[in-house]
C-alpha cells in the first residue's frame, strides 16, 4: 500500500467523511489516491479557507475538521486558520505536503519549513520521516486534536512518504506518556465548590466555550437551575444556555450587556466554567468581579490562575465535573434546604433591575436599515435554531447581542484571533456538516471581500448558504474606534467600490440582491430563505452606527459607554 492510501485508510478509521483542501505539486500522489476514494474532497479557492471551512465543520459538529494543503505557499496560507483554531480550541487536523525528504533543507521549489513555522500555531505538529510511522502519527494527531483542550494539529508529509510502499498495519493504541488529561476533577475540590455555591448570596455563572467543547450544556443548565443563579455566556459560549432561558442574562464583556457586566461586578461568587478570563471579557482585570470569590473549572491547568487567581480551582472536564457538582448540589438542596433566600431574592431583583434599566434593544428607523434591525429580523427567522457564522467586527458583536441561540454549536465565529474572512468559508464547512440546516453567514463588507473567492465553492457545491452582507461601506469597528478615540480621523477605513450583489452572485450562477430600505428588509430576507440554493443579500445599513454598550480599552466592565457620546456628523 502506498503512503497516500495508508493516510486515507487512517482517516477513514477516524471517521473522516470530508476534507477541505487545495492540491499542489507534492500532494499529487495523495490527490491521485483520493480520485476514486470514498472520502469526499471539497476544493476550496484558497488554503486559508480550507482551514476555516474545517473549523466550520468542527465547530458545528464537535468532530475533527480536516484540511489539506500542499507544501510551501499552500502550508503558509493555512497559518491564519491554524492560529484561529488554536485560539478558540477547535479540533482541526491539517495535512500538508512537504518536498521529498532528500530535498528538505535545500531551498527546493515550494519548500517552507512548515514544521518549524507551525510549531507555535498548533497544539502539536508532526513531520513524517518514515512511512511506517504514518498510521501512528495520524491517529495521534486526531487524538491530540480532539481530546483535552481541543486544538489544531498539523501533519507534514514529504512527497516520497506518500509514494513509499509499506505494509499497512492498523494501529489500535496511542501512547503519549507526556500528554496528561485531568478530566475527573478533584473530589474534595468539587465538594468544596458545591458548598461555596450553596452558601453564596450573589452567585453568578460565567460560562464559555469549554462548555460547548465538552458537550456540557445540559449539565450547565441543571447547575444554573439548581442554584437558580443568573448566568452569562461568553462570545464562545453562546448557545451553551438557551437564549430564552429565564436564568440567562446575555454576553458579558467589551460589548456585553449592561446587566451582564453589572451582575459580574456585584457578584460575591463567580462560577467560571470553561472560560479563560479573556481581556475582551474582563476589561481592566483588577476591577473585574472585584467582590467575588472565584471558582474556576477548566480542562487546561494552565488557564487556572493565568489571568485571575482562582479561590477554588478545579482542573477537569466540564461535563464530568458539572454532573458531579449537580449531584452534590441536589443532595444539599434535599438535606440543607434553600439558603440565603432573601439575599438571593434581592440579588435577582438587582439583576432584573439592571436588565430593565438598559435592555439590549435593537435600533430601528423608518428611513434607513439599522444594522441591529437587520440582525433582529434574521433572529426572527432563525428563532434560535439556525446556524449563524460571522467574521469579526461590528456585525459580529450585533449578531452576538441580538441573535438568539437555543442550542450549542449554532453560533460560529472567530473569537480569539478575530479573523476577517472567516464567516463565509466557515459557513461552507458548517453547511457540509449540516446539509439540512439553515445556515446564515452574516459578514461585513470588509470580511466578505476577503473571502469572495469562496462564492465559487458555494456555487459549485450548490450549498444553500444564506450570505448576508451587512454593508456600511466602512471597516465598521475600526471606524468606531477612530471616531471615538482618534478624533474621528477616518484613516483607510472607507470601503468604496463594493460590487453589485446581483451581478456578482449572478456571475457565479446564483441569486443576489441589494436592499437599502427598511420596508424591503423583511420580504428580502424571506425571499432569501425561500430560495433553495445559495443567496447573496447585500444590505446597505446606516453607515455610522456604533456598537454599544462599549467598555473602552483599559476600562472596568461596569464603566460602559451606553450610547454615542455626541451625535457624529455624517460626512456627506
Amino acid at each position: 500500500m502506498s503512503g497516500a492510501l495508508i493516510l486515507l485508510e487512517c482517516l477513514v478509521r477516524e471517521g473522516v467523511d470530508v476534507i477541505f483542501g487545495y492540491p499542489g505539486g507534492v500532494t499529487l500522489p495523495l490527490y491521485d489516491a483520493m480520485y476514486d476514494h470514498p472520502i469526499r474532497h471539497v476544493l476550496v479557492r484558497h488554503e486559508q479557507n480550507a482551514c476555516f471551512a474545517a473549523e466550520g465543520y468542527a465547530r458545528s459538529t464537535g468532530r475533527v475538521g480536516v484540511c489539506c494543503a500542499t507544501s510551501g505557499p499552500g502550508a503558509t496560507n493555512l497559518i491564519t486558520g491554524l492560529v484561529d483554531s488554536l485560539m478558540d480550541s477547535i479540533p482541526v487536523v491539517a495535512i500538508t505536503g512537504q518536498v521529498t525528504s532528500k530535498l528538505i533543507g535545500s531551498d527546493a521549489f515550494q519548500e517552507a519549513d512548515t514544521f518549524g513555522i507551525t510549531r507555535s500555531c498548533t497544539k502539536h505538529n508532526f513531520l513524517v520521516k518514515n512511512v511506517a510511522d504514518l498510521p501512528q502519527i495520524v491517529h495521534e494527531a486526531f487524538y491530540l486534536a480532539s481530546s483535552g483542550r481541543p486544538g489544531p494539529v498539523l501533519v507534514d508529509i514529504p512527497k516520497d512518504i506518500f509514494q513509499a510502499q509499506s505494509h499497512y498495519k492498523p494501529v489500535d493504541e496511542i501512547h503519549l506518556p507526556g500528554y496528561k488529561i485531568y478530566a475527573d476533577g478533584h473530589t474534595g475540590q468539587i465538594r468544596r465548590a458545591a458548598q461555596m455555591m450553596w452558601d453564596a448570596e450573589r452567585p453568578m455563572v460565567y460560562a464559555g466555550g469549554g462548555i460547548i467543547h465538552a458537550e456540557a450544556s445540559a449539565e450547565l443548565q441543571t447547575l444554573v437551575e439548581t442554584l437558580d443563579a443568573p448566568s452569562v455566556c461568553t462570545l464562545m459560549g453562546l448557545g451553551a444556555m438557551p437564549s430564552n432561558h429565564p436564568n440567562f442574562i446575555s454576553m458579558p464583556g467589551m460589548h456585553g450587556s449592561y446587566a451582564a457586566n453589572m451582575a459580574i461586578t456585584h457578584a460575591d461568587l463567580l462560577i467560571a466554567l470553561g472560560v479563560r478570563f479573556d481581556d475582551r471579557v474582563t476589561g481592566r482585570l483588577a476591577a473585574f468581579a472585584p467582590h467575588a470569590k472565584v471558582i474556576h473549572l477548566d480542562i487546561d491547568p494552565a488557564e487556572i490562575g493565568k489571568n485571575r487567581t482562582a479561590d477554588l480551582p478545579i482542573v477537569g472536564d466540564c461535563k464530568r465535573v458539572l454532573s458531579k457538582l449537580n449531584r452534590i448540589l441536589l443532595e444539599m438542596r434535599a438535606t440543607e434546604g434553600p439558603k440565603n433566600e432573601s439575599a438571593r431574592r434581592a440579588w435577582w431583583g438587582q439583576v432584573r433591575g439592571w436588565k430593565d434599566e438598559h435592555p439590549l434593544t435593537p435600533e430601528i428607523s423608518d428611513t434607513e436599515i439599522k444594522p441591529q434591525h437587520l440582525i433582529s429580523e434574521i433572529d426572527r427567522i432563525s428563532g434560535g435554531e439556525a446556524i449563524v457564522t460571522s467574521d469579526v467586527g461590528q456585525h459580529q458583536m450585533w449578531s452576538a447581542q441580538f441573535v438568539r441561540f437555543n442550542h450549542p454549536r449554532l453560533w460560529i465565529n472567530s473569537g480569539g484571533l478575530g479573523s476577517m474572512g472567516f464567516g463565509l468559508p466557515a459557513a461552507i464547512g458548517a453547511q457540509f456538516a449540516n446539509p439540512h440546516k439553515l445556515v446564515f453567514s452574516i459578514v461585513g463588507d470588509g470580511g466578505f471581500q476577503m473571502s469572495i473567492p469562496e462564492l465559487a465553492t458555494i456555487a459549485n457545491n450548490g450549498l444553500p448558504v444564506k450570505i448576508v452582507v451587512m454593508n456600511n461601506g466602512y471597516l465598521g469597528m475600526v471606524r468606531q474606534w477612530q471616531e471615538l478615540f482618534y478624533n474621528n480621523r477616518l484613516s483607510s477605513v472607507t470601503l468604496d467600490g463594493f460590487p453589485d450583489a446581483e451581478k456578482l452572485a449572478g456571475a457565479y450562477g446564483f441569486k443576489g440582491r441589494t436592499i437599502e430600505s427598511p420596508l424591503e428588509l423583511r420580504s428580502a430576507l424571506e425571499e432569501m430563505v425561500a430560495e433553495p440554493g445559495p443567496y447573496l443579500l447585500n444590505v446597505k445599513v446606516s453607515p455610522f452606527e456604533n456598537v454599544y454598550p462599549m467598555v473602552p480599552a483599559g476600562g472596568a466592565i461596569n464603566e460602559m459607554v451606553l450610547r454615542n457620546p455626541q451625535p457624529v456628523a455624517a460626512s456627506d
Partner: protein
Amino acid sequence: MLQIISLLLENKPGALMRVTGLLTARGFNIESLTVARTLDPELSRMSIVVDVEPHLRSQVIKQMNKLVNVLQATDLTDCPAVAREMVLLRVRSQIQTRTAILKEAEIFGARVVDNSTEGFALEATGDTEKLDEFIDIMRSYGEIEVTRSGVVAVSLEAKKLRLAPPVPTSGAREREEAAASTK
C-alpha cells in the same frame, strides 16, 4: 528573577524547539540551557535558567507541562536542589605568574586540562557565583577565553513521575464497542 527549570522530555525532533519557542513567545530571555540524554536513551533531561517575573513562574511550568513531548517540568528555584556549572578557561600567562595561577586554581578546585608555554587551560565546576569569582580572578592574570556550560541541576527530592496511560484509537474504540454490543 532567574528561574531554574528541570525538564524530562522525549528525545524527539522538534522537542527542544517547542521548549525554547514557548519561552521566546512570552518574551522571556533564556540565560542558559543544557540538554543531554538520560539513562533511558529515549528521554532527555534539560536544565533551563530563564529570566521570569516571579508571579509568572508557575504559569511557565504549567505551559511546559502542556507540551506533548514533556513528561515532567519542575521548578527547582526554591526547591532543595543542586545547581552546578562548569567552565573551561584558557589563560595566557607570563613565566612569573604561572605559580600564582596554579595556586588560585587549586583554591577553586580547578584542574589543569592543558598546559603550554603560552599558559593554561583550566576546568572548574561549581555554582554560578563561585565560577564568576574564579573568572574574575583569572582575568587579573592576563588575557582569558571562557566557555561556560550553563547550569545543570538535579532535585534533591524524588518527585513522582506521572505518565499518561495508553489509549485506544477512535477506530479501535468503535470496533470494541461494536463487538461488545453484538455480544
